[in-house]
């Protein structure tokens, strides 16, 4: 069953997710949404790892492990990010990224 889906499908999906994530990161104004875009990027990476592992190098489990670690790191990253975003909200009364430009030039 899974053999019927070629590797390239997964890669197309993951690449699309990667760029959607970047697009979202560049365009969404809300800090939380931006954080979600980052998660998209990380997930695209996860898909890559798993797909490569499954299709190309099934003898090892390196890709899978990597995926697990990335998920864990993403979670902790999100935790810290949300904490800071709360802090931002306290200070700026907003979580619009446009407002966070006190320091420039």
């Amino acid at each position, binding site marked *: 069953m899974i053999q019927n889906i070629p590797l390239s499908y997964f890669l197309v999906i993951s690449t699309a997710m990667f760029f959607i994530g970047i697009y979202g990161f560049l365009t969404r104004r809300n800090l939380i949404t931006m954080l979600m875009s980052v998660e998209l990027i990380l997930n695209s990476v996860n898909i890559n790892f798993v797909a490569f592992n499954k299709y*190309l190098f099934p003898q090892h489990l390196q890709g899978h492990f*990597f995926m697990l670690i990335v998920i864990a790191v993403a979670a902790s990253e999100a935790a810290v990010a949300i904490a800071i975003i709360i802090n931002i909200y306290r200070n*700026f009364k907003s979580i619009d990224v446009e407002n966070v430009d006190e*320091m420039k030039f």
Partner: protein
Amino acid sequence: MNLSDFLTMRHEIVLSVLALLILIIDLNLHNRDKHRIIPISISLFFVYTLVGFLPADKSVLFGGMYQTNPLLVMMKNILNVGVLIVLLQSVTWLKQDANREKISEYFILLFSTLIGMDFMISSGDFLMFFLGLELATIPLAALAAFTHHQTKSAEAGIKLLLNSALSSGILLFGISLIYGSTGSIYFDTITQLYRNTPLQVLAYIFFFTGMAFKLSLVPFHLWTADVYEGAPINITSYLSVISKGAAAFILIILMFTVFKTIAPIYNHILYLIAILTMTVGNLFALRQKNMKRFLAFSSIAQAGFILLGILGGNTMGMTSVIYFVLVYIFSNLGAFGVVSAIAAVTNKENMDDYDGLYATNPKLSLLMMLSLFSLAGIPPVAGFFGKFFLFASAASAGYYWLVFIAVLNATISLYYYLLVVKAMFINKSETPLAYFRSDNYTRIGLVLSGVGIFILGFWSQIYEIINSLSYGILP
């Protein structure tokens, strides 16, 4: 895995223990005694730094995920010394009322990032590398946002975190492609399997941009200035010195091992980015009035010089990069130390506030001047030697024009460093900063960096030790 294996990991293990220990002590301390953590942590860290200097052998753990050898140990030691100075310099700031309750957090977070860097340096595969990288970055974001009542601090935190998340996403994507094209995440295996296929080149670029972000190379540097300005000053010096130094270490290691086959191609890129980084960093630094922002841009320019050593591609290149980072740590910490000492007491960090500083605080001014001269590469202080060897390594690879541009940039950088010197020594001020005595920690920190600035250059032994451990791209 036996006891001796733990000994080879002593940096990471001891540091983790330290962090936990501080946490425990903190839990048992009454609120008004929190400041006692400071001497305890610093003395513990000092002991740890000394322990780090114990001789170490080459060994590999966890099936190749973790590796260590004298060179890596030395890199960690260099970072440790830097961190020690940072800790000493941050005491005055930590003792402020606003930070009183968060003292242990400061140490724990700082040590965590250091553990991350140590792991990153010692990593034998991309997994460990990634873990170390994130461990080094995420607590830093928390540290940058340390003063949570300040908007700037929060802004710095979010800018650092989101940017680093993006960059590590891209970096990870690159790693996934490397994995896909070689089937391994182990450095040794990848080194043998790298064939410069287009996919691998693409993967390399993604990976490189992630590193360039850490090292704040142009055009991946834009977060630097804002974060440096917004973060508490000692975090800024940590970011600019330790974090950047670790990134430089790991970058040169990976460039010289994993990606060495791609060197003929990436050298063109490095050439370009080196010029861009030096020039843009300098151009931005030229007109800065805020000392932190000023030093931020100057440290961007300094990162450009590091690329010269990588471009050199030989033993001399690696030696000069490590040596330069060492010198840079001391010089930059000298400058940041003065800025932080002044800011901690007077809360002033603008260049105009430094007018006439020499009249009131001659020692601070002198140290500042020496540090700036060292950053600019003026003899007899160590910066001269650091820059000279970097240039020499680039010249050894035949990049004479690059060296010329780099030295011209050093001249431009001298201009803005002299602006500070001018403010302190030449400008007259109606209201100069009053004379003050820093506390003993700060003074030790400042003296350490001052002594380092002087000794590192003349004491060739240091350079020779580094040189004996370094290696180049070519077998």
